[in-house]
């Protein structure tokens, strides 16, 4: 005898499968963070903390310059590039003068552009990098350190913040394959 869709045995098995309706499956966000500029890590942390607030299982794979997000020392000194950013707005409100590229090339200008960025964020009541990162951790966002990047940049496990485990692309893709949303920043 061959099994048919209306087979009473199959129907009975489906009916007693537990958890199908009782617990809605948690949504998953897979986020690859490949940049380490202060202006570039904000979108990552905003997306991740929002997903966490929604109760999603959000995981961030920190690779290449994005590794700085979980690098204990370097994460304290994230900066904004003073040159090469065509979208950089005029630094002073009401003064429609942008910083010429040649000025941005002067020593110390990266500190200045970083200072301006932090000032804009503060004025807009947006938490700083560390606060936003803490918000992510509070809602159980997971951060991974890319194993290959650690090798290439010679970053040791003890230089990575506690809680961020080392992972390879295969293991992350294994998670991303099941994710509802996958983003690359």
């Amino acid at each position, binding site marked *: 005898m061959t099994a048919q869709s209306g087979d009473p045995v199959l129907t009975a098995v489906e009916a007693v499968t537990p958890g199908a309706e009782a617990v809605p499956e948690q949504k998953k966000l897979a986020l690859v963070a490949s940049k380490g500029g202060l202006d570039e890590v904000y979108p990552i942390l*905003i997306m991740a903390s*929002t997903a966490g*607030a929604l109760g999603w299982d959000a995981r961030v794979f920190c690779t290449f310059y994005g590794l700085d997000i979980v690098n204990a020392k370097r994460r304290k000194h994230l900066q904004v590039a003073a040159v090469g950013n065509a979208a950089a707005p005029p630094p002073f409100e009401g003064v429609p003068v942008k910083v010429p590229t040649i000025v941005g090339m002067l020593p110390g200008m990266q500190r200045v552009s970083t200072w301006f960025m932090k000032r804009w964020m503060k004025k807009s009541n947006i938490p700083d990098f560390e606060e936003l990162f803490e918000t992510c951790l509070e*809602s159980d966002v997971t951060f991974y350190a890319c194993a290959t990047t650690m090798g290439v940049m010679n970053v040791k496990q003890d230089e990575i913040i506690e809680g961020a485990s080392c992972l390879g692309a295969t293991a992350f893709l294994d998670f991303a394959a099941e994710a509802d949303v996958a983003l690359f920043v």
Partner: protein
Amino acid sequence: MTTDVQADQVLDCSGLLCPIPVVKTSKAIKTIEVGQVLHMIATDPGAPPDMEAWVRQTGHEMVAQATEDDKFLFWFRRTK
């Protein structure tokens, strides 16, 4: 703007931008009982679509929504 809905807790997110209103609302809803109402106030122009999405994603109920000058007002009932 007045509403008939009685709020059990008020959360003022005026002046705060994404993602903070959503983060704070998610935290605050856990501090009230199931069936109780959280009144949230925001000025972020992204708040109305964000909070509608928040309701869809979290399963809580938006009992009422209003605008008052530059403020967006929401009333959420905790459902679980």
